[in-house]
């Protein structure tokens, strides 16, 4: 008999639809108002903190729904937004600066679903409200600074090598070194070439060596400038207490920052633009720390706390500031002991060398200075920033230091990594500017979701009615497939980690609803044609599906191709739209061809039919 479905196909369809439905399910549950606690630089969040947080909140008569620990963060779920505000204040006061307390909306996915990896779709900023910044790193100044360093570096190196030069000058992004005679020039070129493999040296008229960066080195400089800025921005974003921030490199010289839920963009911008610096100072060993703590601070010294809060007495004179640092990396020495390697620019190298010359064997402190927003505003409505100083390391100087040196005596590789990160964060070699900003207020976000949902519902109902009237019983089958298709789109969107639902994405879903029935229209029209040509109903169904298949495949592949190109080339709204379009095409192929065939076979297949309700 024609039009029978093998048992395994029923299972396949049930499995696919069931799995999609399961993963679409978390979207039905709402979101909890929650407070997220994450650790600052020197602290750690552990599961053991839950009882104390619970009792703290209970003492303040704050009712909690659930407190959970995951990914080094504690999530406190409460019942409403008012409780959320109060709880945040209480927790912030109690936990202090070492922890970041952020308000958040946490999906209320039941635990059994979450255990299966189920989570709702991620909403784009246009649907949930928040700020999107696109920042551009000023590469000109990064390369300018590197060129500046090259000038100083050449001078020192040539002098040390006793090669006499007439002048070393910066010309744009290159350096010209002039000599008095050809012999000196030749030996200088030989020396410099060996010393700087990542530079390109050419000879110019007038006894000049022209030095430029190799393409490799330029890429390195740019890359480093972006990486450094990302590190700094991440640190600062943490201060904002945003639940799920995104800081990401985009293209060669841009950084995307997304802060969901932030309303006060002015504040966000000020904090992102705040500065952090580093200073190297000698430790004051002539005076007693205890006297200083008791108020007798010597005039030439200052008192700065270290990371565990223990005060340290340091010399007031700053030996070197952090803006001379060009690079800092963590690593290990030949015995596997963690260390941080620091590179300074030439000016910094000279200063360091002079400063350490007479201090071998003495301890040197590295002080990290950052400006944290206090949350208060001055009369001009500008945020007030508080200067925070902290000793991040004290190390003994082993030898006279130059432009490359290392800090040892660190407890763990993690500490070395943290220190390297802080050192890098201390010196901004290339400033950043905001080149794009998109802020969506919470009211608009909520409205966008509502309108998008309405459009989807409205479109769906219209199509359902039309199909039912036009194709009767077969229309009903197509309608079931259409609804299954929507469930599958939502399920797949929830499953793919990178997929974000945006307003254009919702428009894409609406369009998919309209176009998804196309496959069924093609099949049904074919069946009607076959019936008109005098085939039996079973034959008509069989041939209808068969001959429509390759048409549907071709049509969908080409549209999918268009979607793929949109995704690859487009940004922002275009990406959001193309993702749902592509997913919609893929799922509609399944529902419109496989699912409807199974249903049609189930209803009409395998028996004698006089006519079809089509």
């Amino acid at each position: 008999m024609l039009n029978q479905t093998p048992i395994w196909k029923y299972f396949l369809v049930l499995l696919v639809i069931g799995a999609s439905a399961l993963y679409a399910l978390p979207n039905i549950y709402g979101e909890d108002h929650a407070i997220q606690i994450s650790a600052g630089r020197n602290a750690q969040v552990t599961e053991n903190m839950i009882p104390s947080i619970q009792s703290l909140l209970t003492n303040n008569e704050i009712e909690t729904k659930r407190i959970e620990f995951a990914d080094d963060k504690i999530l406190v779920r409460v019942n409403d937004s008012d409780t959320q505000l109060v709880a945040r204040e209480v927790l912030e006061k109690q936990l202090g600066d070492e922890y970041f307390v952020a308000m958040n909306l946490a999906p209320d996915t039941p635990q059994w679903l979450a255990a299966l990896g189920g989570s709702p779709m991620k909403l784009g900023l246009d649907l949930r409200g928040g700020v999107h910044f696109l920042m551009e790193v000023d590469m000109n100044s990064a390369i300018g600074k590197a060129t500046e360093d090259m000038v100083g570096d050449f001078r020192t190196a040539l002098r040390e090598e006793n090669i006499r030069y007439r002048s070393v000058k910066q010309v744009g992004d290159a350096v010209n070194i002039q000599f008095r005679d050809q012999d000196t020039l030749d030996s200088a070129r030989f020396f410099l070439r060996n010393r700087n493999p990542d530079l390109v040296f050419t000879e110019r008229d007038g006894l000049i060596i022209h030095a430029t960066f190799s393409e490799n080195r330029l890429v390195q400089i740019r890359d480093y400038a972006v990486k450094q800025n990302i590190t700094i921005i991440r640190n600062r974003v943490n201060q904002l207490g945003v639940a799920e921030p995104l800081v990401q490199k985009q293209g060669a010289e841009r950084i995307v920052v997304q802060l969901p839920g932030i309303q006060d963009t002015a504040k966000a911008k000020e904090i992102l633009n705040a500065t952090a610096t580093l200073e190297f100072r000698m430790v004051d060993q002539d005076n007693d720390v205890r006297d200083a703590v008791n108020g007798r601070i010597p005039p030439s010294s200052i008192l700065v706390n270290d990371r565990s809060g223990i005060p340290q007495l340091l010399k007031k004179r700053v030996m070197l500031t952090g803006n001379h640092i060009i690079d800092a990396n963590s690593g290990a020495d030949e015995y596997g002991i963690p260390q941080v390697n620091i590179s300074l620019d030439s000016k910094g190298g000279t200063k360091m060398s002079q400063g350490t010359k007479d201090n071998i064997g003495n301890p040197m402190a590295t002080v990290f200075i950052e400006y944290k927003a206090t949350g208060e505003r001055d009369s001009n409505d500008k945020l007030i920033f508080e200067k925070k100083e902290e000793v991040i390391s004290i190390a003994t100087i082993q030898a006279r230091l130059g432009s490359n040196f290392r800090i040892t005596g660190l407890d763990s590789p993690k500490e070395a990594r943290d220190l390297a990160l802080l050192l890098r964060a201390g010196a901004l070699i290339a400033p950043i500017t905001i080149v794009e900003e998109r802020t969506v207020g919470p009211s608009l976000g909520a409205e966008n979701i509502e309108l998008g949902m309405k459009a989807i519902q409205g479109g769906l109902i219209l199509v359902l009615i039309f199909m039912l009237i036009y194709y009767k019983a077969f229309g009903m089958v197509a309608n079931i497939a259409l609804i299954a298709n929507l469930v599958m789109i939502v399920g797949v969107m929830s499953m793919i980690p990178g997929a974000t639902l945006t307003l254009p994405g919702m428009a894409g879903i609406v369009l998919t609803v309209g176009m998804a029935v196309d496959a069924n229209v093609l099949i049904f029209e074919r069946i009607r044609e076959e019936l008109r040509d005098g085939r039996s109903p079973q034959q008509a169904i069989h041939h209808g599906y068969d001959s429509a298949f390759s048409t549907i495949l071709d049509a969908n592949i080409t549209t999918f191709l268009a979607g793929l190109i949109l995704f690859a080339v487009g940004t922002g709204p275009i990406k959001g739209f193309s993702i749902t379009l592509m997913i919609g095409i893929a799922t509609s192929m399944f529902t419109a061809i496989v699912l409807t065939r199974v249903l049609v076979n189930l209803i009409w297949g395998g028996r004698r039919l006089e006519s079809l309700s089509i």
Partner: protein
Amino acid sequence: MRLLKINSTVKFMRLRVPALVFSTILIIASLGSLAVNQLNWGLDFTGGTLIEVGYPDAANLDEIRRELDAASFGDAIVQNFGSSQDVLIRLAPREGVKSAEVGDQVMLALRATGKNVDMRRIEFVGPNVGEELTEQGGLAMLTALICILIYVAMRFEWRFALGSVSALAHDVIITLGLFSFLQLEFDLTILAAVLAVIGYSLNDTIVVSDRIRENFRKIRKAESEEIINISLTQTLNRTIITSVTTILVLLALFFVGGALIHGFSTALLFGVVIGTYSSIYISSSVALLLGISKEDLIPEVIEKEGEDLDPMI
């Protein structure tokens, strides 16, 4: 129920000369409008600042203009958006680093009088970013067309490929022409819509081409024109029904989707109509004009692709 009860073949191709003339006129008019009026480029492409604010009651636009003028934003364009409470303020790109802060300053100026103004969205796009987006958008469109050309040429025949790509170009140019003629704002979402029109129109064209190919192989004794007419007649019902369902959802999007995607649904609505027309008249006419014939479509292997594979259903 059947939309059209057609028992004899409709002679579509008899009208192909008038249709080509009609399309040519539309394309020339569109290109003319694009040259003279150009597109009303949105913020995404021009750069600048856009602020949408909500007032609790109907907003007084003149008062807002005065407030902005006082804060030295005299060049701002102020208009309602969607409803009388919603106001859209646009500012051209400004020189200087502080341009990213314009949005915040405007909000301060509006709130200075102590009014309860709801910030709904702020968009700032730097001038360079805008230029890049224009380039990227154009590039996306071109890449899409070329890839489709290659795929269709491989799957069908180069005459069909040229036919369908000229149909796509036809749709894109006329849709852009409409936006230029009506001076509707052209932003990134409209670009996405135009690209979706490409997808839709392509879908339509492929279905028709597929049927033409099939009939060339099945019906041995007929002229090319006759076969195209037969194929178009056979697919006519499907073409119309799919257009109807798509237009239905787009109408839903247009009327309830909100002001933000008004432009998007307008572009798509128009594009679907044009795309339906072009899949009937443009792609097949061009293929016919290029001299498509039976010999081109009856190659060594007549079997349909995938026939040797197990059926999926």
